[in-house]
């Protein structure tokens, strides 16, 4: 049983401030990945523990309201299991389509979600900046 933990990791904080610049150096965090690693997420993670073979998907980014108008970043994306049954236990949000290090914004770990070939998961990631 994995711990249901989710962190905006330290690189995610860096990505956040970069995106506030007049000319950001990096991309927005919109690529979602999934994997089978079970080590609970921590603030210092830099990538997924065991990424799956499926490609990252481009999520749809929107502003949502949790406590204050537009205080929440939401990213929604779907990944289809294409290469064998697997138990998904981690999810990551990246600021890059393919790079494995240096671009992780958020990592989550959770109890296994069993997928068969052809099944897909729609992940909805919410990051709330007003924690009132």
């Amino acid at each position, binding site marked *: 049983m994995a*711990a*249901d*933990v*989710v*962190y*905006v990791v330290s690189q995610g*904080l860096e990505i*956040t401030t970069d995106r506030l610049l007049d000319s950001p150096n990096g991309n927005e965090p919109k690529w979602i990945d999934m994997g089978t690693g079970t080590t609970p*997420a921590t*603030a210092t993670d830099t990538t997924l523990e065991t990424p799956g073979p499926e490609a990252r998907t481009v999520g749809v980014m929107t502003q949502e309201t949790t406590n204050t108008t537009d205080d929440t970043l939401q990213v929604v994306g*779907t990944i289809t299991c294409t290469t064998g*049954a697997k138990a998904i236990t981690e*999810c990551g949000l990246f600021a890059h389509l393919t790079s494995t290090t240096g671009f992780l914004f*958020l990592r*989550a*770990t*959770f*109890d*296994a*979600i*069993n*997928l*068969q*070939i*052809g*099944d*897909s*998961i*729609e*992940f*909805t*990631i*919410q*990051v*709330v*900046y007003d*924690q009132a």
Partner: protein
Amino acid sequence: MEEVRSGMRRPEARLFAKVTRASGEVIDLGQVAGPRISRASRAKGKAGRKRLNQVAKEARDGS
């Protein structure tokens, strides 16, 4: 406990998941990670995982 895990000084994050099986069956697992998971969401996740585990077992058994 969960609020400490999620990092009090960082933005608070939550993850929701919904599985669509190859057959078209939709299994909503609700919030799967993050603080303050509601009782309803936990129940949804438990029922959804039970269904997915059953599917996995059937696939292994070839039934």
